[in-house]
């Protein structure tokens, strides 16, 4: 890392004397105490208070409620202001953003953290927007959409026609509520995470895991017998191979939502880290000359993130629809190249 920074530094200060950059790096990272890694991890992580920005020594922070349960101690509820700067309140304190009890008891933390607050906020925004859209349809019916309704109609129609109908087939209708919800939830939260002061909600693996588990459950509960026949008696596979094929198919069932979880988490978190790294370069170099270059790169990544925000929402929705489509599909097509082509056993596409 040091060497990389040094190389970048040399690149940016070609006109400066050769001995100067070393001193600047040492100054910036040691004397000032600016830790880019710590800043970035703090930004992408969850926290018990919502830190907006700091001007000099003044921190502009919203303190969120802390709710904790300890066996034998009951529920404690107080503002996270009481825990600021390492203070202890009611026998609780924060250690690296984890709520711990002073006496070592297990703490169940149900706090409204930054991510939870952001989730509630985005749920409110989604409700407001889509009740307005739904009101438009209730009022105007099939007439031309107006206002906010006309912005969302093409997107909703896109999800229905390009994602749901093509992936699921004739039974697409009952999965539309979930597909639309997950699409707009991910998209809105990606965008809210990109706003200044926004929380990194879709870059939190617990959130993406919950979404992936819901997808897995919907897939499993809507699966028909073809889906299971494909797993436990893969067509075109000799009986002797089944002990190998069944684990392979079962791995596939669980890997699909797993890759959904990791993809969304990794894409959003990586975007935040890259943007912040470019911004942090200014403070590492402590040189105004670096700012135009890093800001240009940072801005470029930011605009790329705007695209990634909708692209990841689309990919999550599309793959969810495909997994559901694979589970509800009736057999009608030969699974060609994978056996079953002789017509003896009707093969089905997974």
């Amino acid at each position, binding site marked *: 890392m040091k060497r990389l920074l040094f190389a970048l530094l040399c690149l940016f200060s070609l006109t400066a004397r050769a001995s100067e950059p070393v001193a600047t790096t040492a100054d910036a990272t040691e004397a000032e105490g600016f830790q880019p890694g710590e800043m970035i991890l703090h930004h992408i992580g969850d926290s018990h208070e919502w830190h907006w920005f700091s001007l000099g020594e003044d921190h502009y922070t919203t303190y969120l409620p802390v709710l904790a349960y300890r066996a034998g101690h009951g529920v404690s509820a107080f503002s996270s202001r009481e825990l600021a700067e390492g203070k202890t309140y009611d026998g609780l304190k924060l250690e690296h953003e984890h709520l711990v009890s002073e006496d070592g008891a297990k703490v169940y933390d149900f706090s409204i953290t930054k991510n939870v607050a952001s989730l509630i906020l985005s749920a409110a925004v989604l409700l407001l927007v889509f009740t307005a859209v739904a009101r438009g349809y209730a009022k105007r019916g099939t007439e031309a959409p107006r206002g906010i309704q006309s912005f969302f109609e093409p997107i909703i*129609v*896109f999800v229905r*026609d*390009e994602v749901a*109908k*093509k992936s699921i*087939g*004739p039974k697409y209708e009952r999965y539309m509520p979930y597909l639309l919800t997950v699409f707009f939830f991910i998209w809105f939260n990606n965008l809210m995470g990109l706003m200044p002061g926004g929380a990194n909600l879709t870059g939190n693996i617990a959130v993406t895991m919950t979404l992936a588990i819901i997808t897995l459950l919907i897939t499993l509960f809507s699966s028909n017998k073809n889906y299971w026949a494909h797993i436990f008696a893969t067509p075109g596979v000799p009986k002797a191979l089944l002990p*190998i094929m069944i*684990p*392979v198919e079962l*791995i*596939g069932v*669980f*890997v*699909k939502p*797993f*890759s959904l979880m*990791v*993809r969304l988490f990794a894409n959003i978190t990586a975007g935040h880290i890259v943007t912040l790294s470019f911004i942090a370069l200014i403070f590492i170099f402590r040189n105004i000359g670096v700012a135009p270059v890093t800001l240009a790169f940072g801005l470029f990544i930011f605009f790329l993130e705007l695209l990634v925000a909708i692209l990841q929402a*689309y*990919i999550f929705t*599309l*793959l969810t629809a*495909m997994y559901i489509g694979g589970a509800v599909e009736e057999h009608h097509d030969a*699974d*060609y*190249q*994978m056996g079953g082509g002789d017509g003896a056993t009707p093969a089905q*596409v*997974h």
Partner: protein
Amino acid sequence: MASPLKPTDPHDNNSDRLRTVARYSGIGAQMAATIGLSTWAGYWLDKHYATQTPWFTLGLMLLGTFAALYNVIRAVSKGE
């Protein structure tokens, strides 16, 4: 547009191209996840049973690689 489903040419417009890109990028991630998850499971089992030779890691890694390849071949040969 409540028209009934009709078969479409897979490369007739941009959204279908985007769909194909998303689909195949999904297959790649799934391949990585399959190998990674099964290797991790084997590693965990070896640690848990304190085996002398890491048979679980080896076996599950190979099974994961096989499963990943099998799923990729099946997904791409299925077509759209």
